[in-house]
Structures are given as C-alpha cells and as structure tokens.
C-alpha cells in the first residue's frame, strides 16, 4: 500500500483524513482507487476529458511526476504521493532541480 497525502482543502472530500493508504502499481491506478473510494474528489482532480487538471501537481516522494513517467510512473509500497495545488507556483523553474523544496 502506498500513502497518498491529501491537501487541506480536499480533506472534507476524503472523509476528513490527511492521508489515505491504497494499493496500486502506478500513479494512475492509485488516483483511480482514490477517486473510486471518494467520488467527490474526482471533479477537483480531473477535468471533463478525464485528464488531471492543469494546476494539480502530483509528487512521488519529492519528484514531480511530470519529470518522471507522468501518470504511468510506477509506485512501490513504501512510496508517498503528494497532491499539491499549483498555488504560488508549484513547479520549479529549474528543470534539473525538480524537487519539492524542503
């Protein structure tokens, strides 16, 4: 089971939890499992075409999945996935330094 961290504004749509443990081999499978369990999250994360909304940033541990294999990025049981809205610029402007800043 990988751990998905739920950002504060989405917690009311995920049973008030700050994290959810779910099974899945890729980011896509995990987010599918998440939105299957908590249907109200779907419209916040995906657009009408079923794509992740453009301001939704997903990190595998500290890597932005845009710089990995996007939604096909593979996930291990010990991994932590963060969903962070692109407020105040969620994405680093240096492609070689694409970690979520500590």
């Amino acid at each position: 089971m990988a751990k998905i961290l739920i950002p504060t504004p989405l917690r009311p749509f995920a049973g008030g939890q700050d994290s959810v443990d779910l099974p899945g081999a890729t980011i896509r499978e995990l987010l599918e499992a998440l939105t299957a369990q908590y249907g109200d999250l779907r419209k916040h994360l995906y657009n009408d075409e079923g794509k992740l909304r453009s301001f939704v940033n997903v990190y595998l541990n500290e890597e932005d999945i845009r710089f990995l294999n996007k939604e096909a990025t593979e996930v291990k049981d010990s991994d932590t996935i963060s969903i962070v809205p692109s407020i105040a610029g969620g994405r680093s402007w240096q492609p070689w330094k694409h970690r979520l800043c500590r």
Partner: protein
Amino acid sequence: MAVPVAVPNFWRTHTTHLLSAIGNTPLIRLERIAADLPGIEIYGKAEFMNPGGSVKDRPALNMILEGERTGRLTKDRILLDSTSGNTGIAYAMICAAKGYKVKLCLPKNASQERKRMLTAYGAEIVFTNPAEGSDGAIRRCREIYESNPDIYFYPDQYSNPANWKSHYETTAPELIRQSEGRITHFVAALGTSGTFVGTSRRLKREIAGVRCISAQPSAGFHGLEGLKHMPTAIVPAIYDQAIADDNLWLETEDAYRMVRRLAREEGLLVGISAGGNIVAARRVGQDLARRGERGVIVTVLCDGASKYLSEPFWDDSL
C-alpha cells in the same frame, strides 16, 4: 523637407523617490477583450507597473507607514508576516529602501522566482507546509510572533485596516479620476480582500448606483495564486461580505485561458489573478450586454506574468 517625428510625451519627467512611484498606475482599456460586447467598456488598472511589480505595493507601504506612525515599527524590530508572494515582495522592497529587516512565512511550493526575488531584497524566508497553502503560512507566522512578540512588527495584512484603507485613499480616487466618474461596475477577486473592500467602500461613497462585484475560486482546491475561497479559508478580519452586490465563482482553467488571451490579444503579460479578474469582468459585461444595457466595468491587473513564466499553463493545450 522631412517633417520631424513627434516625440512621445513621457509625463514622469522629474526625479522621484522609489516609494513615491507607488500608485498612480494607468487605467488601460481592453479593446479586444470587450469587442464582442456592445455598449460595454472594460478597463484594467495596470498595477503591475508599481515598482514592486504588483498591487500589493499600496497596502504594504500603508501598513509600514502606519507602523511607523504608531511607533510599532522601529529600526530594532523585524517586520514579520505571512504572504503567498506579492505582499512579501512589496514588504521586502520597501523595507530594503527604508532600512528595516524582514522575515516572511510562505508555503514551500512558492516558485523559485519568488524566493530569489525575496532573497535578493535581503528578506529572510520561513517555509511552511505546501499542503496547507496560505493558511498554513498564516498559522506558522502567528506562532513565531506569539513566541517572541517584542522583537517583531507583525502588520498582519489579513487583519490590518491600513490594508484596505490604502485602496480607499489611493486606488479608488485614481479610478474615479481616470474614468471621469463613469464607472458603473467594479469587479475584483478576493485574497486578503483589501483591494475589493477598500476600493468598493470609496466608490460607493462617491458614485451613486455603482455596483461592486467580488469573485472567488469556485472551490478551496484551486490554482488561482493569491485568491481565497472564503467558505473554506481562514476568513480575513478585514473582509466585509456585505459590501459586495454580487459574487462570481472562478475556475482556475478559465483564468489560465484569459491570461494567454490577454497576452496575445491585448499585449498585456499579466498574472493569474489578473486573468481571473478579467474573466469576472467579462461575465459582468456579458450579463449587461444580454440585457441590452451599457456598462463601464473596471477591474485590477494585480501583477505581471514574470513570476509565472515557468508555469505549464502557457501551453495552449491546457
């Protein structure tokens, strides 16, 4: 004989102090954005032309001046506040010019451009949990202040009346003068709510029948930099819901599309909240045009695009 080409008349012809360059921004008519709306004029206040690059220069300066007037800000105190970006840049700029120390709490996911700007002005940055957004920064800032209140000046932009008063005293009178009192609608999205509250209060006092319309992200989870979804956010103490004649709900993607359109059709390279404001202004204009009414709709172009150029939303497919 060649006719001499007229030299444009640049009106800033005298020397001035940096801080006197805050305010008195142009009011720009958006011709093409409103071209399909008969009888509707849409104007944007070019706040990106302030020396700190955003509308926040106005409240930041007024809060600092107020701190000096009341003796709460002295050279041996550190200015401390939470900010998603622009207010921090304004504080850092003004304090650098005036010789004050600055400490700012901002979410870890703030862009590199912002962090570098703040550091370049000499400000100290405290990073807060990105998942908690600007509310997390507010909470952290309060903890730091309460642990040592004697060494800090905490202007608290969300609660400080000097925030909205800066717009009451400067933004609104400028708009009235520049529009020759013709404003029928003022539209602004809510962050601290200072721009909307201060400008609206003054406009309603000076112009009979003016309608003031606020705008907010449609949900707490959004990408509208600097804006707040009041039903789920920490509501700023200076926010007064009763001032708004109406409120519009904004989608992040609509603001992104408008930012691209403003760049290509108006030559205005502005930030996301400015895009949101124009989306809201257009919606007001569409409503009026549908009813066959005329309107002079004014809003604020809060900041320029320089801090967002590395964002993925410039890509047309998004």
